[in-house]
């Protein structure tokens, strides 16, 4: 679906590399996102409740669903920001001082 049209601009190579790498970052983040929320909190919740030691006083799967997933999301967004900013810098798409 991502076929390149003919007559692309000259620095197309750099853009394609950037796009492939940012897709990898997004997929990586979303894979963890899926595991911590829908995975731990819903699909495997019963197994985690039974097999893993409780989180303080809460069964592990239940805790993931009510608090752990949210903490996970927060860490993921932070990681996304760091990875994408460093990709921007390496690929020369950095936005100097634009905040």
């Amino acid at each position, binding site marked *: 679906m991502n076929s390149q049209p003919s007559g692309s601009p000259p620095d197309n190579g750099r853009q394609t590399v950037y796009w492939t790498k940012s897709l990898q970052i997004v997929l990586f983040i979303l894979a963890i996102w899926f595991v911590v929320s829908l995975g731990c909190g819903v699909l495997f919740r019963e197994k985690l409740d039974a097999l893993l030691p409780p989180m303080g006083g809460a069964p592990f799967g239940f805790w993931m669903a009510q608090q752990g*997933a949210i903490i996970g999301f927060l860490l993921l967004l932070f990681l996304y920001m760091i990875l994408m900013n460093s990709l921007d810098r390496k690929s020369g798409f950095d936005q100097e001082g634009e905040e």
Partner: protein
Amino acid sequence: MSQDLWNYIFIGGSFALYIGIAVRSRAATTKEYYVASGGVSPFANGMATAADWMSAATFISMAGIIAASGYDASRFLMGWTGGFVLLTTLIVPYLRKFNKFTVTDFLGDRFYSNFARAVGVICAVFICMTYIMGQMRGVGLVFSRLFDIEIWTGVIIGAGIVFFYAGLGGMKGITYTQVAQYCVMVFAYTIPAVFISMALTGNVIPQFGLIGNFTEATGETVPLLTKLNQLNTDLGFPDYTVGKLGTLDMFCITAALMCGTAGLPHVIVRFFTVKSVKAVRKSACWTLLFIAVIYLTAPAIGAFARTNLILEVQGTAYAEAPDWFKSWEDRGLIAWVDKNGDGVMQHEAGGVFAGNNEKPIYAEATERAANEPRLTTNKLSENSNEVYYDRDILVMANPEMANLPMWVIALVMAGCVAAALSTAAGLLLVLSTSISHDLMKKIVNPGMSDSQEVIWARSASFGFLVVAAYFGINPPAEFVAKTVAFAFGLAASSFFPTILMGVFSKRINREGAIAGMIAGIGLTLGYIIYFQFIVDHQNYWFGISPEGIGFIGMLVNFSVATLVSCVTPPPPASVVEMVEEIRLPRKAGSATH
């Protein structure tokens, strides 16, 4: 000082603050009106987005829902926060780079079609209208309880304030009032939780109270949740930490809420107010952090409230019932029917009254003796549960349950109002820009001048507020609660997948996007309408409830769009170039038409 005086000070003070901010930041141009000139700092935008996102329903009802349904309520906790991961990685950086005023602009330009634009306008208006009705109702309810006025007066006051700063100030006015509103909300939500957490579990940080220990009267300590499970099962309720929804249903609902969150236009446009793609990423971190402070507290409040309620009510003689029990009974949100005539309150699983979750109907108000409950005229159910309570009281009654000082109660009320107003303002902005920008400027009259557009935006926001206030005063009964499923289902099956394909595929064309949206929305709306309004049974397909169907609608949208795009001509070269451009973060610049 009396409670009334504290209420006036807190509500009056917060209103003065909001209006003061609005007067300082009035918008004159469309750019100020729609995106606050695109110069908001990531930190301030994070706070504003958090306030925008957390509605009266989140603030007032969520902890109550968690208290009532335990594990099952995790779908809201995960759904309404997990959506921000999708939003940040898949949607907002690219739409910010696209650099226009509205979400519908993207649909119209990317799919080079005014038809797609019109579908966008309809979805945005529908989603925001459903939401805003509930906010106006929330403001009215809080005011009527606080100041003993009719609900309609409360709704009108709330609508007036919102029009003043959102209608006149636009995005610029909204942004900084939302920052102030977030501060009010976060204190109002966490301060009572701190006191209760200390009393119940000895933990100063309420977020940790959920996993803390409960001290029995005998001095032994058990984990709070173990205690709660035991209390629940003793009374015939399912285990607090297990719940009863099926796994597939739970999966679909959580996923639909996540994707719906990532497709809500009033949240997406907040990220158009920061300077660059880099700032969007930073702002998303702040947003989720501010939301998490409240969302991590909510499950703790839910567990505390449930424990307190059972411990203080179950097996207590009515004559010795706590004061808060009677004062909320006065306001019609608690009822007790002495089914076995022993004068002691028995709380068990099952509804008190015959029918499905029936609310109490009180006998004509007569002077009630000190130790007599209010009489109800409902037909009673077969089971022996005697205590009815409205789940919404749990957050509002929390300070009273914990015997907190009066100013805390006033602060909680100010927090409820802030939650409702901040969300209403954000929604109103999307509603008014949908009309002034997407409909009038882009479809009807492209030659319109900037100042005319601002006038249209202000008039549209006035018009929508009148409609919202009307429905706030005369809510279509259960309709509002049921339509929340619509708002998220619609966002999950229309905006989210279509924007996603618009950014991540160069091959999806006009025909595909339109066919996909129609198929996704059609399935979702059809399913919800069929099960909510037409039939009475709940024989859902594969056990997926209407709340979760948006996820299936989204999958249908993806498949139809891909299939149709494969057999129709690819999008023009200019559109492909635009897609390539928005994928690169540099030169986001400021918003243009």
